[in-house]
């Protein structure tokens, strides 16, 4: 069974305790942050295990790669602590169970993974994806199980991830283009944290997107719009990829004015957080986030994750922002998609 590779000494000697100090939901002074984290490290009771809302941010805040969030989830599971209510936790486990019903396209050396998210199928189409769209895979057999970190069910990840990796391996692929941050984060961050070998090269879809936009530069008509970006929780697992967003948006003529809740200070969509911590916090996060978007004068809210998009679309639209996925924005820029306007 795979165990989390983390080094107790790295935490013990950490000069910053940024993982907890920067937490947007729990308040600590520097000493407290360090103390509480050490309690977690040592498997003792800590309020962190009760109060952490599972936003993934500490994975980014820890610059020493010691996976504080995965550790918190491990400890929770060891102690039988549920984040979301037990029936919701089990529902997610059941919902994502492999049932032999996956769809596999024409695979050669590449696969385009839409995980278990139907919306990704539609996004991964058209001119931009024309050379890889036929190699799409979809289904629980190819689903990254990262979502179960929200529910402190690392055992589910440890059980299923090797099977998913092996399923890809059986296809004989050399590269898997991940249309979702969570997938890419799983095959890089989580797999590595648990010492799992990944025999294919995970490709982050935004890297692919930027390369394709460069190839299609002659088709691009700058969109000349202002947008706000909704950064998903799973992007915190792959923070080195975050700068790609601005690069892509610059390329297609989308201005991203600075706002308070961006980059490391971003707010998640709060959908799963609602199950974990209740509606009051979720509503508060969503309200602050959307008001912050509106202050920039943005006309569009750009999404990276279909789950965030599904959670927030109606809410941002009511406030006058046009919700759109970054892939669709690129399709608009190359003239493949009609300009969507509120």
């Amino acid at each position, binding site marked *: 069974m795979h165990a989390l590779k983390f080094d107790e000494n790295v935490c013990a000697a950490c000069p910053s305790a940024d993982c907890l100090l920067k937490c947007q939901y729990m308040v600590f002074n520097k000493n407290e942050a360090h103390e509480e984290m050490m309690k977690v490290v040592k498997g003792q009771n800590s309020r962190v295990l009760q109060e952490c809302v599972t936003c993934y941010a500490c994975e980014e805040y820890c610059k020493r790669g010691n996976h504080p969030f995965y550790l918190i989830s491990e400890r929770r599971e060891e102690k039988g602590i549920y984040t979301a209510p037990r029936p919701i936790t089990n529902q997610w486990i059941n919902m994502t169970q492999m049932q032999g019903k996956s769809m596999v396209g024409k695979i050669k050396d590449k696969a385009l993974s839409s995980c278990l998210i139907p919306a990704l199928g539609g996004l991964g189409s058209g001119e931009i994806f024309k050379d890889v769209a036929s190699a799409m895979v979809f289904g629980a057999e190819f689903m990254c199980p990262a979502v179960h970190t929200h529910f402190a069910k690392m055992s589910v990840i440890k059980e299923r991830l090797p099977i998913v990796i092996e399923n890809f391996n059986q296809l004989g692929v050399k590269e898997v283009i991940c249309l979702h941050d969570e997938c890419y984060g799983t095959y890089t961050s989580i797999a590595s944290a648990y010492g799992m070998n990944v025999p294919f090269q995970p490709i982050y879809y935004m890297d692919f997107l930027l390369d394709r936009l460069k190839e299609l530069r002659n088709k691009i008509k700058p969109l000349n719009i202002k947008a706000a970006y909704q950064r998903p929780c799973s992007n915190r697992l792959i923070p080195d990829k975050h700068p790609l967003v601005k690069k892509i948006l610059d390329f297609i003529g989308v201005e991203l004015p600075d706002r308070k809740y961006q980059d490391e200070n971003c707010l998640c969509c709060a959908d799963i957080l609602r199950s974990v911590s209740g*509606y009051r916090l979720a509503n508060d996060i969503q309200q602050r986030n959307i008001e912050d978007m509106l202050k920039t004068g943005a006309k569009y809210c750009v999404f990276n994750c279909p789950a965030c998009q599904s959670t927030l679309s109606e809410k941002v639209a009511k406030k006058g922002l046009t919700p759109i996925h970054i892939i669709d924005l690129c399709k608009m820029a190359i003239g493949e998609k009609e300009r969507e306007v509120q």
Partner: protein
Amino acid sequence: MSGILKSLIEILGDRGVSNSPEELWFYSRDPGVLAPHLPDYVVAPETTEQVQKVVQLANRERIPIVPMGNGMALTGLVIPLKGGIVMDMKRMNKILEVNEKARYVVVEGGTSQGVLKAYLQDHYPRLRHSLPDAPPVTTIAANVALHGQGRLTQQYGFNSDMVTGLEVVLPTGDICKIGSPSLGPYWFSKGPTLPDLSGLFLGWLGTTGIFTKVGLKLYPNKKFRDVELFVTDRVELVSEILYKLTHLEMLEDINVWFQPKPFMFKDNFHITIYFTGDTEEEIEFKRKMIWDAVQEFIDTKDGGFMGLQFMKERLLEMPQRGVADFADVPKGGGFEYSGPITLVEHFPQYAAKVIELAAKYNVLYASSARIISGGHSMMFSISFAFNRKDPAMMNRVKNALDEATGFALEMGGIPWKPNFMEQKMTMQKMDPNTLKLLQMVKRNLDPRGIMNPGNWEVS
């Protein structure tokens, strides 16, 4: 041509009568598990006068007559058990009057749920009626005749409680107005403050008369409608959760359901909570009240609210088109359910019974309960799917449903829209004086025994 056929054609025109094998075959059955029985004629009247004349003829000639809407009760109530005439009411499908201020509508005996919904949306958007999840072609008259329920039942009771007046053709052929229409042009009361004669017809499954007009209460239609879905894996907590929710007195509908597949629903009990409002503030206030009402269960991690992004649109559909889906699970075009009315606190026993019956009879199950009148009772549906090509499976479903009804009676519940055998089981358990009263009413209203014979029959 037989004399009867000729007489029917004289009353209805030749497009209003059929004794072709095709119509006789189709109208001899419903989509449930009971065996069919051929009628001798099928008729489709367009006016009350035509209904009256057919009933008079049937009375004279002692021919059974079975009124039907769309036949989706599924318990064989439209099967002509003793042959005779099946009367398809669906050509009487007008909406006669809407009194917006008094909030009632008057429809004909074959007006469908869907047409009323669309009509109100187009012309009276501030009004709605209690729409069931049955397919929209089902009729309002049939629904109230068998004490059906709908989206507003949690607030206002059975759909039959929402009746505001009736026009009935009695088995003798007399046309009778029931309630305030018997005194004047207004349809605001089915009985009170007169002796409530509607009770002679509602729930009698077409055995005491044919509804040619129905008055129905309408209710405020709010601008917004939303839903939350609360999930628990502890069946014993369900009634307490429902008690807390109904205490709020601010919910539209509450359904409780469970099923083994798709996997995401496995092992959990789902409580769908609908609420409405005219402003976002009202909706958000109600949402907060709902969450707070069940916070204690969230705190103990025994229950929680599901994220609904992918399901919301489907849950908010009215009627929910996916309800019929269950029929195709065994790829066989059929399901039937027993839906006894019972106490909410009996939910765990009924839930256990469903699973036990499904295992015993090797059939696929789904179950859904609807809260009635703020929790005074619930309709608990025990639903089994079958493949129409597999008579053995159909028989197992029938036996499972019979056993479900027997269980409901043991638990002190009331079978809802029972088939003729379940009616007998019910009457056997009934208080003898109640049974005598039932028999007296039926014999006096239908002395020649022509109205949907075989049903509510006391030997």
